[in-house]
């Protein structure tokens, strides 16, 4: 059986909120964090809008020493540290300055690319024959594991400290990897999350692939339209999300606040076989991932109350709904509520899964279902599959028990997590 695993801390650095209170308020109200980005316009991007966390210098100074801030040019590390440390504090955990590491706590904090602005700066220096001027900060800011290394140093983590990278599935995967580590008794507590840098060098490749919308540069807040008939591609985003996962035993012993329980989940790949390619999901694998997650969590499809989809606002949204429907084998009138926060914050790439899990856990613990925005004109291919009432467009206050969260990534990879409300009687 192994340990039961619960969530005791949350932290977030999202385009529409950089504290849990601010973020929770924003998702309830359907507030958008998507803005016009002058730098993308100046660089002739097709998509000139994006979601970026808004942080003051004063706020950043609370998390880093003056020395760390010198030459710090990795937004992903800044977002990850803020979300990570906030989650740790939210869990009621302190930062000890002992000589001995905390052997029972670790982190799996994912990233796509780390410190891409720093990397560009370093490349320019090297090409200008100024290798000597790189200093000591290039490696730690541009290694993929930079974010988890920074977190580990700040918290003194002595258990596993690693960075996973699995495209848009990164955040959901980091939580499942951390969950397994606690479940199998190898760690008591893990900080799980993921981060994604901001800026043209991260988003440029997606713009070139023409997967981002170019139709809403004049109305940024309308640009990201999951499940809408007029969805025309995703809006890039950035930020970080973090969750403290802990064995139930440890959480109860500490009398920690418990946001919810991770019942289980599954990670798989479509192998880029069948209909799967580098960029398109193999539907069989997606369905299998969802079904195996249910089995792993020990629940039946009809027990799911809410789905937090991957739903990026491309033409693939209808395919995703079809996959959920096939996987769950539920008639249209029994299909759960489904929502996507990407209408408000865009697609935060490697950070999407963790930010979305933070939103999902807030919904479960506070008993609400946040509204989908920008889908007044629901995609008819979707309403042919499920009832429109499954896709709330206004906030619903309603306690519920089980939420399924999935993320799908480039490389034909999938992750699905089952979260359950925690009640002390259970």
């Amino acid at each position, binding site marked *: 059986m192994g340990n039961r695993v619960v969530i005791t801390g949350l932290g977030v650095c999202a385009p529409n909120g950089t504290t849990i209170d601010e973020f929770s308020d924003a998702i309830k109200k359907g507030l958008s964090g998507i803005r016009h980005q002058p730098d993308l316009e100046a660089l002739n991007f097709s998509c000139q809008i994006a979601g970026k966390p808004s942080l003051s210098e004063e706020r950043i100074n609370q998390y880093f020493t*003056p*020395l760390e801030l*010198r030459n710090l040019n990795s937004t992903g590390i800044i977002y990850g540290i803020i979300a990570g440390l906030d989650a740790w504090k939210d869990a009621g955990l302190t930062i000890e300055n002992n000589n001995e590491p905390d052997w029972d706590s670790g982190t799996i904090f994912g990233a796509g690319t780390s410190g891409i602005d720093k990397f560009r700066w370093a490349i320019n220096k090297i090409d200008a024959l100024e290798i000597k*001027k790189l*200093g*000591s*900060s290039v490696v730690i800011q541009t290694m993929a594991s930079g974010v988890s290394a920074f977190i580990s140093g700040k918290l003194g983590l002595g258990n596993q400290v690693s960075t996973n990278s699995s495209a848009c599935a990164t955040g959901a995967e980091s939580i499942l990897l951390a969950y397994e580590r606690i479940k199998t008794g190898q760690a008591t507590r893990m900080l799980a999350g993921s981060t994604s840098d901001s800026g043209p060098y991260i988003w440029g490749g997606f713009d070139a692939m023409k997967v981002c919308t170019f139709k809403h540069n004049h109305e940024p807040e309308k640009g990201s339209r999951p499940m809408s008939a007029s969805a025309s591609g995703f809006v890039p985003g950035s930020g970080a999300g973090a969750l403290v996962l802990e064995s139930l035993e440890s959480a109860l012993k500490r009398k920690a606040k418990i946001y919810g329980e991770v019942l289980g989940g599954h990670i798989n790949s479509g192998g880029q076989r069948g209909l799967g390619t580098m960029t398109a999901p193999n539907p069989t694998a997606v369905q299998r991932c969802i079904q195996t997650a249910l089995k792993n969590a020990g629940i039946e499809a009809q027990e799911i109350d809410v789905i937090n989809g991957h739903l990026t606002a491309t033409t693939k949204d209808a395919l995703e709904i079809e996959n959920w429907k096939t996987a769950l084998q539920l008639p249209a009138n029994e299909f759960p509520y489904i929502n996507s926060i990407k209408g408000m914050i865009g697609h935060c790439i490697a950070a999407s899964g963790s930010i979305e899990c933070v939103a999902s856990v807030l919904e479960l613990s506070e008993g609400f279902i946040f509204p989908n925005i920008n889908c007044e004109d629901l995609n008819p291919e979707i309403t042919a599959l499920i009832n429109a009432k499954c896709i709330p467009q206004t906030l619903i206050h309603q306690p519920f028990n089980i939420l399924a969260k999935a993320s799908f990534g480039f490389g034909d990879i999938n992750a699905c997590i089952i979260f359950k409300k925690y009640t002390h009687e259970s």
Partner: protein
Amino acid sequence: MNKEEIIEALKTIVEPYSEEASALAHIDENTDFINDLKINSANLVDIILDIEEKFNIEIDNDSMAKMLNVKATTEIIAAKLEAHAGQ
């Protein structure tokens, strides 16, 4: 620039890299960057960059390898400044 002036300038440069307030306050020729000031060895390269900028000199790899304490660093800076002045 005399030795005292160089040490004084050096103190300002290394200050952000060390949390050893009392060792910093009593910095002198015998101060060792790693043992006394507890400076992270990776930051030694950043200190060299700051020195190059501050004194407008270039420090070669061989000199750099010797710059582990105040005495050696001061001597190297003084020699570079002298060579510079002679140009």
